[in-house]
């Protein structure tokens, strides 16, 4: 049996190294290629939070919140099998 191939392409989640322009605007509401970091930051650390005994099932995520807020750059370590989305041509 052959071992499954490791995913070698990792999404670039550290500070991007784009330097040609100071500002890069990416339209993302309709069809987007936001980095996984951006999606993680918005989806895991923002949004309506409901709390109380009636809420179940969020405990597992708390650890991720902590790490994301602490480092905000290494979601590829939190999510080891993350694959980058294909960019729009």
């Amino acid at each position, binding site marked *: 049996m052959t071992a499954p191939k490791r995913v070698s392409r990792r999404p670039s989640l550290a500070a991007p190294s784009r330097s040609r322009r100071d500002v890069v605007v*990416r339209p*993302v*509401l309709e069809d987007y290629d936001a980095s996984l970091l951006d999606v993680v930051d918005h989806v895991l650390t*923002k949004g*309506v939070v409901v709390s109380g005994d009636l809420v*179940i099932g969020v405990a597992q*995520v708390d650890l991720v919140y902590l790490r994301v807020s602490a480092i905000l*750059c290494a979601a590829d370590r939190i999510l080891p*099998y993350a694959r980058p989305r294909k960019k729009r041509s």
Partner: protein
Amino acid sequence: VTLYLFAIVRRRPRAPLGSGIARRPLSAVLAGGARVIVEPAPAPVPTATTIRGHDRVVRRIARTASAVLPFRFGSVVADRAALRSLLDPLEEAIARALAEVDGCVQMTMRVYGERARAPRAPSLGKGPGARWLAARLAASRAPEIEPIVSETAPFVRRLRVERHDRGPLIASVYVLVPRAAVRGFRAALARGARGLSRVRVETTGPWPAYAFAELP
């Protein structure tokens, strides 16, 4: 079966809701004087796929409703009754939050580079309370991108700054922009960016208003 929560909207969207992360049909539950878009499913394990899936569903909802308050990833309640007892007491806050984001999208700016020196606190006094206030004030500002903040101000309904103490990312700046003003915002952003020094700004968006979806 538990309910996984995606977003709060004012009324049931007219377009079909489609399915959620677990590929089960979404429905709109009346709670807190609004409708909550839910999927009959457990909380998904947080992976790149499910996190993107949450965002994708919220975006789909945002295309059919002018005011959307996304839930944070992983929010699950036991049933409809639990959802109502959670949100019914927050009815006024929900209405206010929906009114604020109505017709708007969020643009997110990441500011990389050199931190500006902390500005001297204006005459707030010298006590611990004044120092705390001054620190709060400094933390809520992004002097590094002042040219952008002032250029884009006419297109921004609300601005929220989160400063980061360490690393090359010095601040995340979230702005609420009316959908019709996105083009104007972008042009103003480009103008403001010409006045930047020692920092670089990366902007993404439009996003659903994640950073403005907070209930007290």
